């Protein structure tokens, strides 16, 4: 678990440093994910420690969103005033995004590019 955690933190640290230094528009952890991915590709896969460690961390990924979600208590007034546009916007947009993304992907998959003559 310690090996996995230090690997993950090290990748995040390098990611945070690089995004700030190069002023990239993506957050450090996402760059850290790409760096770890590249490292795994070079190394030919994660070791047992990293595989199990990341599984542990990801098993309860939803827990990690709870503190930010509880921030709703800061916006009860606005949510009370604008609950209808907020609710409809989130609902319609989320459903539409799911449908559009999946449909476009399926269409591209079913009609692969014509083979070059």
């Amino acid at each position, binding site marked *: 678990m310690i090996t996995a*955690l230090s690997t993950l933190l090290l990748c995040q640290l390098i990611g945070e440093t690089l995004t700030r230094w190069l002023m990239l528009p993506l957050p450090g952890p996402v760059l850290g994910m790409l760096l770890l991915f590249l490292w795994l590709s070079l190394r030919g896969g994660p070791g047992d420690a990293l595989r199990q460690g990341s599984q542990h961390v*990801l098993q309860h990924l939803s827990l990690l*969103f709870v503190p930010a979600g*509880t921030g709703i208590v800061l916006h009860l007034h606005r949510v009370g005033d604008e609950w209808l546009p907020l609710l409809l916007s989130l609902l319609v947009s989320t459903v539409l*995004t799911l449908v559009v993304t*999946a*449909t476009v*992907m399926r269409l591209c998959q079913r009609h692969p590019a014509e083979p070059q003559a």
Partner: protein
Amino acid sequence: MTEPIAQIWVYLAASPLLGLTLTLLAYQTAFALFQRSGQHPLANPVMIAVAILAIFLWLTGTAYETYFAGAQFVHFMLGPATVALAVPLYTQFRRVRSLLTPILAGLLAGSLTAIVSAVLVGRLFGASASTQLSLAPKSVTTPIAMGIAERIGGLPSLTAVLVIFTGVLGAISARHIFDAIKVHDPAIRGFALGVASHGIGTARALQVNEQSGAFAALAMGLNGLLTALLLPLISQWLVR
């Protein structure tokens, strides 16, 4: 001699111990309910845990900042967890490479749909300009979305909440929507869920299967990047 309860409360309320313990307990309760419901999407553990905590903070008159002083340790783990998504992504990479065209097309279409429809529906039903700007990055994972909201003139902390609820809505509805439009490929289901509902969608996809989870993680990363590049360019035309 015992200390009066009020004084103990003063100590606890000022220490990070309480916020951290409460977050874990609320999530554990929510997760137990989720399991008992047979993992029913409506019993989403994030939503239930947030409800428990919000009610507790309200009843005890505790400020969110005080709670967050403890809960930040959980919040912090979002970083390493995002990095950890590289592992399922690596495991599934062969499939990712074979689906490169659908992935890029789906990403572009989904990312634009998420931004434009959120703003336009909000505007149509009378959301204020700052609310519309806070809605725009709602499909992107929390840290990126807050950064974007700040740059385009939304309210980062409102965006964080909208992001979480988008995630919960996606996690709740995805299964029924994909079944209704007859999309059965776990890679496509995962990817679409990741584009629409970022990390919470990814968490849900990982519960279903590893391939879905890997594609959701990929979608979350790519959509975060694309939205961060795209939204500052189009927000001034979208929002009124």
